[in-house]
């Protein structure tokens, strides 16, 4: 089972991101579960969503306590919420930012997790270019696909188009693709640097 936790704020599409990811996994023939941990409709409140993917049926309903990947959609949550609680040693971190981990004060992650499992991606900026609005969720899913290789970009694109009709879907796919390329490039550079 691969367990993902996404952190963001209300209105950023955190819940939608988990749902799209689950639909993507489903389209690849896997079992998938996505659900939120949030409450009343309120823009700006901290929101967490979860997605599990497995080749076997998923029975558990608990929040993702042991995460294989954590996506941080809103960096203002850093130091406010225990974002990385339960991240497994082999786990991945994807942060939506144009800054570096050090600049965010997250430099100590490098000591705990694999260097090439930690990546930042300016998903909001990429979304702004493609969508005209900084709605980063689709882009982050593309970045996630590149980082973890747990899901294909194709599956993400299919799920994104399923959720967003017409031109909106295409623009979100473009954002996901751009982020995918960004992270692929970043990963190559990291591996090149550590080889």
């Amino acid at each position: 089972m691969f367990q993902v936790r996404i952190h963001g704020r209300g209105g950023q599409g955190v819940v939608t991101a988990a749902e799209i990811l689950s639909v993507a996994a489903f389209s690849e023939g896997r079992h998938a579960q996505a659900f939120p941990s949030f409450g009343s409709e309120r823009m700006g409140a901290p929101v967490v969503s979860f997605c599990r993917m497995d080749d076997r049926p998923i029975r558990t309903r608990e929040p993702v306590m042991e995460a294989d990947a954590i996506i941080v959609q809103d960096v203002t949550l850093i130091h406010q919420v225990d974002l990385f609680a339960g991240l497994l040693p082999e786990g991945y971190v994807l942060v939506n930012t144009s800054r570096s981990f050090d600049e965010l004060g997250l430099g100590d992650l490098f000591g705990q997790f694999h260097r090439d499992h930690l990546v930042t991606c300016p998903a909001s900026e990429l979304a702004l270019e493609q969508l005209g609005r900084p709605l980063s969720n689709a882009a982050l899913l593309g970045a996630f696909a590149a980082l973890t290789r747990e899901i294909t970009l194709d599956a993400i694109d299919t799920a994104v188009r399923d959720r967003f009709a017409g031109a909106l879907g295409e623009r979100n796919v473009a954002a996901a693709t751009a982020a995918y390329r960004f992270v692929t490039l970043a990963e190559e550079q990291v591996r090149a640097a550590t080889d």
Partner: protein
Amino acid sequence: MLRQIEGSRAVAETVAHCRPEVVCAYPISPQTHIIEAVGAMVKAGTLSPCEFVNVESEFAAMSVAIGASAAGARSYTATSSQGLLFMIEAVYNAAGLGLPIVMTLANRAIGAPINIWNDHSDAMAVRDSGWIQLFAETNQEAADLHVQAFRLAEELSVPVMVCMDGFILTHAFEGLDVPEQSDVDAFLPPYEPRQVLDPDDPVSIGAMVGPEAFEEVRYLAHLRQLDALARIPALAAEFSEAFGRQSGGLVSPYRTEDAETIVVALGSVLGTIKDAVDVRRDAGDRVGVVGITSFRPFPRDAVREALSGARRIVVVEKAFSIGFGGVLSTDVAMATHDADCSLRTVVAGLGGRAITRRSLEELLAAASRDELDTLTFLDLDHGIIERERARMTATRRSGPSAENILRDLGTVASRIG
């Protein structure tokens, strides 16, 4: 056809396939996605003929359903928590009148303090009302139970509520098979009322009944619920035959054949419990779990049989009777009172507190070592309790406990589980 969709969406589509004629509901989290989806289908004409009534309260919702059902229309509504309490007079009225209304109860805690997350206190508040209460473990079962619910309700002239955990199931995306229209039509014939408001054959429905006959009327309702004990498994079998999967029934045991310790629970937590059972089994503990699907009527015999052979029963429940103890536990204790086993109550998940596999594993391990107290509150923060009690002892004007505790905890939503 298998689809990855939201639980609420699956329930809405399934309910629509049951061809309700009057749908009425009042918004309340976390049921809203269901009723919005049904409303959209009516507005678009995909669910037709159907009258969708936007009512002014939950009390009105159940009342509209009562009027519609008494006039011979298949009626449906949905609610949770506070909404259920607001309509409670009408809930009892519907059962007393023998109207086959089907309602989705998206289980949510009852305030104060106000809390929109899942627990079973709402269902427990109406367990004596005469409604049949079925609990879904998964979204697939939640959808399937609605099809069975309409059949059951209309056969017996008893209203049925399908309970599904709010947010945990209603707002979860998972793969499932929404029952097709043609299959539902084959399973669920049109509503043929036992009593109906018809100018060509006038009857008075809802007359006063005095001491001379009230007990008899109540007893008849009791007998109808006992009839349900036989119909529920039969319908589940028929459903399985028609749709090719197991949904519903009275109880569902898992790895209980040689179990020494058996957990009993309702609803979605059964999935997490099964994972915990597997881990404990690997560690050598002989544990199993029994899920109760039909909570009312309470399947005493089926429960006793499923638990026979166990030395220890651990009831994990999302409700409790303040000042006493478990609610489900009391029913289970009644069913097993002459069995030679211990019964432990674990209250868990109140107000949406996450029930983790880890905590369950520790619980099961402790149970197997006979180290469980009679009543345990899972993952209770005793520090918070002690501080608040100290506060209340120190000063009379100690303020609302809820606010004091929240100040203690810090920012809401800073915890994951």
